[in-house]
């Protein structure tokens, strides 16, 4: 999967949210992270996010990878 052209801020922002959520118990952190992205990230951003995940999620914190299962995958553009 191609990750060129993905805004590098996407992985940075996901990791930032993870760092806040990591101070919570894991289940709560996963819930917090996934609902945060579901609530605030526009589909274009989530699309890029899933490109990263689908490419193996390199550079993403473990909590982001775990939470990605609960993040809504937008329709392809």
């Amino acid at each position, binding site marked *: 999967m191609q990750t060129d052209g993905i805004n590098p801020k996407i992985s940075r922002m996901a990791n930032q949210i993870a760092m*806040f959520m990591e101070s919570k118990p894991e289940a709560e952190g996963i819930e917090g992270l996934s609902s945060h992205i579901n609530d605030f990230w526009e589909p274009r951003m989530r699309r890029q996010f899933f490109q990263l995940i689908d490419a193996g999620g390199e550079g993403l914190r473990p909590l982001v990878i775990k939470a990605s299962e609960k993040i809504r995958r*937008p329709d392809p553009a």
Partner: protein
Amino acid sequence: MKDFIIPAPMFSDRDMGTPASKSKTQVTLEIDGFEVTVPEGTSIMRAAAELGITVPKLCATDSIDAFGSCRLCLVEIEGRNGTPASCTTPVAPGIRVKTQTGKLKQLRKGVMELYISDHPLDCLTCGANGDCELQDMAGAVGLRDVRYEAEANHFLAKNTSGEANIDWLPKDDSNPYFSYDPSKCIVCNRCVRACEEVQGTFALTIEGRGFESRIHAGVKDDSFLASDCVSCGACVQACPTATLIEKSVLEIGTPDKSVVTTCAYCGVGCQFKAEMRGDELVRMVPYKHGKANRGHSCVKGRFAYGYASHKDRILNPMIRDSINDPWQEVSWTEAMDFAASRMKAIQEKYGRQSVGVITSSRCTNEETYLVQKLTRAVFQNNNTDTCARVCHSPTGYGLGQTFGTSAGTQDFDSVEAADVILVIGANPHSGHPVFASRMKKRLRKGAKLIVVDPRRTESVEGPHYRAKHHLALKPGTNVAVVTALAHVIVTEGLYNEEFIRTRCDWDEFQDYMEFVADPRHSPEAIEMLTGVPAAEVRGAARLYATGGNAAIYYGLGVTEHSQGSTTVIGIANLAMLTGNIGRPGVGVNPLRGQNNVQGSCDMGSFPHELPGYRHVKNPEVRAIYETLWDVKIDPEPGLRIPNMLDAAVEGTFKGLYCQGEDILQSDPDTHHVASGLAAMECVIVHDLFLNETANYAHVFFPGSSFLEKDGTFTNAERRINMVRKVMAPKQGYADWEITQMFANRMLEDQGRAKWGYTHPAQIMEEIAMTTPSFAGVSYEKIETMGSVQWPVNDKAPEGTPLVHVDGFVRGKGKFIRTEYVATDEKTGPKFPLLLTTGRILSQYNVGAQTRRTDNTAWHPEDLLEIHPHDAENRGIRNGDWVRLASRAGVTSLRADITDKVSPGVVYTTFHHPDTQANVITTDFSDWATNCPEYKVTAVQVSPSNGPSDWQEEYNAQATLSRRILPAAE
């Protein structure tokens, strides 16, 4: 001016002579044979005024304490000797007072005769003619003759032999807005007391004694401008003669009517009387029944309104094909056709999600509501955001999570009951001056102050106040400091267990306690990191927890960080831990930047929320608008401002309607903003001026000023204040009409029903109908009550001054862990200093308004504050040009060497486009809201010999871009 006020006031605007007493005990007495009952502590003068009896007076006015110097307000009291001054004599039960007797009449006439003997009798040509209390009093006491010849006097420049009069002083016209003419002064001391009691600056004094007594600003040889005077206007308002008078009154004459309206500057939301002659604004006078300002003002609201009639204002719509072309003036119809066809074409080519809007925090609630409605109902997406994104979005998130509502908890009156005031990341002295004056008044009465700020700001110490603890932390370490404060409160057992047990979730508290009690959060453990001595943190925590009513006021120094939302949560935790929520004198109070930031957030400007903070994912909320607007509301969140710019650079976001917001100057990382704007195919700027963003615009809709339209602003207290039209829009339309015209032009193409608002009151009706927290709001209610604080609904028909009184809006208050995460923006060998940014008293935001007024007398350019140690290392002298560089960009400005900043920290303001501090700031942002990290940028400073290449190129591009071709014949 004999008061003709719009709207007809519910409360008299009359000067009652002395301030109201707050006593609950009532006292009944008799004045001139009439019985009157007033609170204990009321002056006889005020009690008489309650009966409609005006005792003659000169040195008394109801904004300041009685002084008893003019000897005009004498009365007689049965059974008491002498003729006491009614201003300084309090009422007593059963006393009988006479205000008009033969003896009193004679005494008063004698006093007036003495006053007038040393006054120039140039009444007909005097600026205060018709608005002079001395003139009124001469009339009131029946003075018909002056027996004394003014041999020694203060008002003649030369005596009859042509020799200079050493007692005569020339006018001081140094202040751009008001004039001081010593020859007309009666030394009543009102100005001095207003400066002390109301404003708290203590810039004025009386120099000399007896006949030598003169009002003086600052120290010897100071003029008004050179002194500490902050030009708030309190002295001018207090002056009973023409000694201190607005230059606009001298030039235009006295006003003939006044209209009560709301200031369009900061989030304090002061009410003013716009005093008019015809449709010309003569002056703005703070309205004493304004509940946010209680009759006070600052230099911006009081005087800096000239931008509304500045020559730079654009009065015709303009279009151009490319941003390299000059502007072409066109008719409104042509502008609408052009804009609508471009937006339509973009959506057809790139999809529904390729356009969006930015609503303005300077416009009214009604206008903001329409702009978000434009994107949701006409563009049919959720791409709407507002400048709150870049200031207080973390407040919305943090307070929403912990308390359940995205707003401050108190009204401004609450500060009068505070015992401890904790100011974090805010400098009210400069940013929220009228609130600062109210806070300083409380501090002078003994409340304790704690300030958390990297700089020693004017709010840390000043006349008769000094912070008990100033935690001068390293920029970017707020979370560590706030968590350490909580650590002390928890580990030293200073928390309020009863409050926590009844009002918060106890299990969540247990979890939070376990987290915060960890020794790694102790003040000692974080000292190296934050630079704050542990003892100071401990002292501050103890004071906050045990000093009585403790209130937190915070600003953008909290929110504009990578961890802005975490700090807001930490602040909410502190208030819950100590039970400082739900009564007067306490609370968590965000100081909002712009006049209507609160309102623009309330009105659904955020891309994930419909009005009233309801997420677009909720079908029942969407249904309300889908039915009303006959459209399908997108259930997915839209783009936030930084995301819009990213998407623009990536090529999927192509069109923007930006109302009253200058993102190129105000948003971080200017280069990135510029590339985003340059990549768009249609940028519509709706503004008063060709702002910096307009350099990249294709359509310009000229906007109307706050003086030219009706509507409402909501201030930091959630107070909905009325904005009233005092003159016709100079460019033909109020801003809400322009948005409606544009929406209707697009709806026409879509073959859909048009909007048909004919007055903003109808827009408010729609807001009330669809938004539960505004359910009880109407123009009628605001007119009757003067203002109203949301929520306004069946439970609180008169609004809600304090929220979370019996329980939190979300139910139980929620404690959340606040782990400190250092920002990635770190100093290193290349960029060894930390830059933080802020504002100054005389300028506002990006300066678009204040730079176009005489406020530039105080702040003509942005300066870089640098510590003497850092300056010396670099060979920088005061006033030198320096080069300021970060990884994002380079600019140049002049250095101001000061120890207000610590070594390692530099500071500047962002009011001037020539310096553009935001070329330097980076694209890092808050983890939860993308609020930019303006307050921390790693920089290097070096000597320079003038503006950078970038600044010169920018100015050249701006000049080219601002060319306007004359309209086609």
